[in-house]
Structure formats: C-alpha cells, structure tokens
C-alpha cells in the first residue's frame, strides 16, 4: 500500500496554537510525523536582556497563559539565589498556594479538552464549569483570572487574611465533590475509555529516552516531581504524594492530571492550616550582584528550569528557560507512531501542548 502525506496545522481545529505536523499515512495508520515549529517565535529571550531585572517579572509572566505563575516563580528564585535573599516562611507558603491554584485550573482545562475531542461535549462543559470555581478563586484572591502577578523578588505581592482564607476553604469545599465526580466519569465512561486507553502509548524506556517530565513522564511510570526531588519554597514541609501510572497512554496522562488536581486541594489546605506569620516580601528593592544561578520548579506541565546570569548592571546578561513542552514534541513522534489518523488530535492534546512556551 502506498503512503501519502497529509498536513495537520499550522492552524487546525484541534490545536489552540499554531504547529505544523506533516503526517505520513498509509491508509488510516500514521507512519511518520515531521514537526515544523516557529510560527509564534517572538524572541522573548532577547527581550529579557533589554528589560531590567525587575521588569522581567512582568515579561516572564506573559510567556504562557496556563503556567503564567511558574515563569516568574522560577525567575524570582534564580535572582534570589544570586542576591542571597531569604524568602520569609509566609511568602514561601503563599507562593505554593498560588502555584497550586494555577495547577488545578491548568489540569482541568487539559482534561476538559480531552472530553471535547472525544466528542463528549456535555462532560467538556461540566469540567469547564467546575474549573470556573478555580477561576473565581483566582479573580477574588489575585484580581485576575490568568496572569495573577503573585511573585516579586524576595517574596510575594499578595497576602491572605482570614476573609481570603475562608473564601478559599469554601471554594475548595465546593470543588472537591465535583472533582470526584469528574474523576469517576473518566474512570468509568465507556466512550472515554474506548478512545483513550492504549492510545498514544509512550512506554517507560521511551519516556526516559525523550527526557520528558511532568504528568507525561509520571503517566509512563517515572516518579519524578521537582516538588519532592528538589524541594523549593514550602514544599519541604508539605506532604505531596507523587502520582504515577504505568501504561503511558492518553488515559493515564489524564488520570495523573486529575489525581494531581485532587492533591493540589489537599496541599492548599495544608498551607492554609499552617500559614506562618511574618512579612510577605522585602520592604525595598534589593541590589542584585553579578552571578549565575539555576532555579527549577514544578509547573503544571512539569519541570521548568531557569538559568539566569547577571553582570551587576540593571539588566540581566542572559535569561534562559526550558519549558516542559520542549521535550514533549519529540515524544509525540513516538506516541503517534502507528496511531490512527482519527486519534492524532487526541494524542497531541494529551501532552498538554504549549506552543507559545516552546517557541518563546
């Protein structure tokens, strides 16, 4: 049987952002995939060297929408290492709370898209409605639904009083039973199971080979989570279970995300129950000497690493980051091998692709 090539993208109904896949198919089966990137390359790495160290907090927050909190979080941690700034315990806990709230919203969004691609739009709307609880929470606590502007060098820019904490507790109480019901649907619904089990498999060996991180790695049996392997902020004091599954298929990746959303609720409650007293940030802007540092954090999609080099001037000499999605594209070629054409969009969506993050 002869093969022919079909284009998927750069603009495609199943992709939220532009990416171009040249898919070589034989009948209904994918034989090879070639990925062409660069449609939203903006040169943000260059821009960071033209902004001051403090302006870059705002710039890095705008690299991506769903993990917008993780970028300034890692960037601030790198600068704090260079300048030798200690973050107060209260600020550390508040940072954890900001990133866990973002994690729930990010994971629910991806899991909702899965239901949409399966054609189960009622479930899609149900998950998005549940996610709205978290969006309301962000809007109330931070004043914004996506870019929450939580971090500053040396601490955080927000604080939670008893009113904020009781609103958080009430929202989590609303969220939890709804999330449990969503998990039950994904575990038992035959339409979901038929379309996602055994589809887009990335086995453990291939996952190690591709160096994937985050839920994609954990769904393939790699128990790597920056929060436990290289603790930062308040994570060394918190109980954060790492969820892994062995099958490495689309379904496992969704279930790992749902389990992590559930864990995030628990982590938020742990933080709220033992929120230390103290300042939330420094009183004045610190001086940042010449130096270099690496900071890592667990973004919703996995390990986000920042490398920052400063030369003692107002602007950093070099800021480099690598997002979790960066390795996932190559892993997609493994997942898509011998897949059915109808499953392409489902498999692509299962890596929780972030193109503006990848291309910067």
């Amino acid at each position, binding site marked *: 049987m002869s093969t022919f090539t079909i284009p998927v993208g750069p603009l495609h109904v199943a992709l939220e952002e532009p990416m171009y896949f040249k898919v070589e198919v034989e009948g209904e089966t994918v034989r090879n995939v070639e990925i062409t990137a*660069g449609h939203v390359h903006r040169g943000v790495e260059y821009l960071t060297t033209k902004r001051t160290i403090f302006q870059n907090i705002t710039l890095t927050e705008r690299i991506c929408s769903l993990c917008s909190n993780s970028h300034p979080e890692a960037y601030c941690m790198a600068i704090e290492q260079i300048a030798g700034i200690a973050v107060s315990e209260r600020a550390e806990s508040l940072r954890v709370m900001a990133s866990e709230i973002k994690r729930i919203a990010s994971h629910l969004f991806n899991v909702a898209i899965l239901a949409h691609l399966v054609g189960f739009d009622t479930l899609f709307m149900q998950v998005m409605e549940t996610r709205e609880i978290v969006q309301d929470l962000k809007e109330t606590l931070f004043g914004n639904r996506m870019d929450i502007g939580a971090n500053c060098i040396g601490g955080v820019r927000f604080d939670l009083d008893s009113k904020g904490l009781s609103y958080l507790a009430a929202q989590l109480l609303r969220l939890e039973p709804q999330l449990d019901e969503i998990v039950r649907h994904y575990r038992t619904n035959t339409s979901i199971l038929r379309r996602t089990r055994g589809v887009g498999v990335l086995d453990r060996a291939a996952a190690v080979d591709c*160096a994937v991180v985050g839920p994609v790695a954990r769904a393939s049996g790699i128990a790597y989570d920056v929060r436990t392997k290289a603790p930062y902020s308040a994570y060394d004091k918190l109980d954060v279970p790492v969820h892994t599954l062995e099958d490495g298929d689309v379904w496992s990746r969704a279930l790992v995300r749902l389990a992590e959303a559930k864990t995030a609720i628990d982590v938020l409650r742990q933080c709220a129950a033992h929120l230390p007293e103290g300042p939330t940030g420094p009183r004045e802007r610190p001086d940042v000497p010449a130096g270099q540092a*690496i900071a*890592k954090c667990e973004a919703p999609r996995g390990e986000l*690493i920042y*490398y920052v080099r400063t030369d003692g001037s107002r602007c950093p000499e070099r800021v480099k980051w690598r997002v979790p999605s*960066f390795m996932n594209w190559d892993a997609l070629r493994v997942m898509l091998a011998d897949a059915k054409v109808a499953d392409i969009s489902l498999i692509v969506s299962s890596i929780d692709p972030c193109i503006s993050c990848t291309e910067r």
Partner: protein
Amino acid sequence: MTALPDDIEARLRAAAPGGIGYSRDETAKGVAVAWCELADPADLEAAARCLKDLGARLSTITALQPKPPEPDDDDDAADGDDAADAGEPEPPRALGGVAIDGTSYEIAYHFDVDGDTLTLTVFLPAGGGTVPSLTPLFRNADWSERELMEIYAIRIDGHPDPRRLFLDESVDAAVLERLIPFSTLVNAASTKSLWEKILEQKGGAS
C-alpha cells in the same frame, strides 16, 4: 543528602584530561547545584558520557556571549592615571584560554541528577568554534542544539538533523549576534515615499 555522588569531581576529572574547574553549592533545602567548567571542548562528550552513566537527564543547554567585566572605575579615580595609561586592558581568559571579550561563546549544559543540577560549561573562541553534538547520547539535545545553531555562529559537529528549528531558512544565521535596526526589521522602505507624497501634495496646494 543529595543524589549527586561525592566522587563526581574525581570522575569528571578523569573523564576530561584537558582539566576542569569545579564548584558545588547547596540550597537551603539541601538541593545540590554543581558547576563544572571544561578547559577543552573536546572533553565534552566524555564528561557527558560520565553523567549519562550516573543516570543524568539533560535539562537544557544555554549558549551566551559573556561580556567582559566592567573596568573598575573607582580604583582609577583613586590611584591616579596608572590604569588609564596602560591602554586597552587585556580581556580576562576563561579556563582553557578563550578570551572573554564579548564575542567568544560559552555553552552551558544543564544536567539533572535526580533533582540535583550539574552544569558542564565549555568555552569557544570568537567566530564560533565547533563542539561535538550530544544528540547521539541524549536524544533531547536535538532541539536545543538546533536552536543554538540558528541564533549563534556555533557549529555542532555530528548533529543528525542540523536543520533550522524555529527560524525560517530565509533568515540570516546568527541573529542574536547582530544589531538589526528597527527600520530594517519592519522593512520601512515606504517611509521616504510617504514623505515625498506629502511634499508633493503640499507643493501642489501652495
């Protein structure tokens, strides 16, 4: 307790006969961050293989053109004209002898060893030297190496697929090393014709 073995410095020293500079810090939470500079870029492959044997994962690769340190103005003012008479100061040299004058390169390979980070750094002279590709050892070096090849004049030896990654073939090489005037970037050739048009209209009106 960290995942990075205590004898890692000795292992890297054995793998890199050209010589290394090694330092190690630990964060307040007990996460080790180690830095290893290689005097000879040719030792990169052996050093990376040593880390691969430890089960390391390549996190990412950073390339940059380090700026020379600023001359110390305060000293000049205090000590009189000794420094001023000496002419252009010699740029400092990196381990291995590459001059840090703003045109040479530094490539930092960041590895993750079960949560700890170890960075291998090599230095390349101005004009772009050649480093061996790590893609045969670490599959995910592929995209990182392609990206740094398109933004700097660095050559990677033995890359299996050295095509452009993000930038189109029509974009000139080494974009991050050139100053591109804004008018060139936005192809502002129409500015003059617009001005001429206005002048013409004004001339016609008066």
